[in-house]
């Protein structure tokens, strides 16, 4: 099993969830109000709009599904928005 951590601008959260649902993942977990710095701009989260905050979405799935997710996110989201994808090994116990 693989764990994919998706860091994405909060404005794109609804869309990413929609894509994950379409792909048919068995589940995902969302941590909101995540801050950070990358190569684009510092997300300090102080604005009244949501655009300076990130969401961290965790998906644990089989390798094939993870590859599909990566493909879709790359094409539909990361072409226009900043964001990061981190992949690691994990074991589902239950």
């Amino acid at each position, binding site marked *: 099993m693989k764990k994919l951590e998706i860091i994405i*601008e909060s404005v794109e959260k*609804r869309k990413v969830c929609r894509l994950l649902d379409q792909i048919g993942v068995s589940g995902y977990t969302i941590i909101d109000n995540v801050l950070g710095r990358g190569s684009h701009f510092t997300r300090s989260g*102080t*604005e009244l*709009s949501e*655009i300076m905050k990130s969401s961290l979405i965790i998906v644990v799935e089989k390798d094939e599904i993870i590859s599909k997710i990566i493909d879709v996110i790359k094409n*539909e989201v990361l072409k*226009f928005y900043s964001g990061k994808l981190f992949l690691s090994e994990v074991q589902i116990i239950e």
Partner: protein
Amino acid sequence: MTNFISDAIQNLATPMILFFVLGFISTIIKSDIEIPQAISKVLAIYFMIAIGFKGGVEISKTGIDISLYNAIINSVFIGISTPIVAFLILKYIGKIDNINSGAISAHYGSVSVVTFVTAISFLNSKSIDFSGYMAGMMALMESPAIFVSILLVRIFSSQKISTLKSNFIDLLKESLFNSSVVLLFGSLVIGLIVGEKGMTSVKPFLVDPFNGILTLFLLDMGMIAGQRISEFKKVGFFLSVFAICMPVMSASITILMSSLFNFSLGDTFLFSVLAASSSYIAAPAAVRIALPQANPAYYITMSLAITFPFNIMFGIPLYFSLINYW
């Protein structure tokens, strides 16, 4: 001129503006004051409900007449013309690329609730009346500029702009039913239905503490604006000047336009403030979805850290004296 100066000083010496300044300074000196975002969000909602509702109740008293149709025409005209003017200036004078020009003009064509609320508080302090439907006009002016700006980008861009279809749907939702539009219109309709009788029961919450709560909110806005100021140099000279001249120009044109319709002093003033104000809640979210290639450091910093402080501190008394002493 002396009138403008005395108005300006009087405006600067209100608790609201001074708390804005305090917030701004506290961020510069890196104080650790922190107003949680949950509070900022609910205060923004409070103001939209309060002005929408109060507007509705006012309309229920005076009824609807010809001036409403004029006001709607005026609003739509401002909402469409401001972003076009802004776009052309940015593109041809500022040599800014199409996408960033469009992103910025969406902000200056749209409106700022807090600037509007501060202007109302300015009018109240001078006991000058304005029409109940002005809250509705603000709601009307929220979204058109965003669509106009995107259209301009598409027209002027030779290569295809790669906004995806799914993004366009998100954008439509975000713009047409964004929280300001729904809350302002909704509260206005509610005020209209319940009338003065309904007002009495909610007055101690929606009316009496209005100015005091604005004080707290502007402290917060001062901090938010202050935090953006570090991005100032990224904005550059031309855009900084634009962020001050554009509102003055929009206000001036609007004052001229409005004189054609014979609006009251209060209404003309509020129209000029709406035209001059730039959005920093609805527009950034919509633009980030519609024009992701545009640089947020430009539009957020300009709108929040330059235009907004300029408007509430100097713009409001300036536009007021333009109307009065022209």
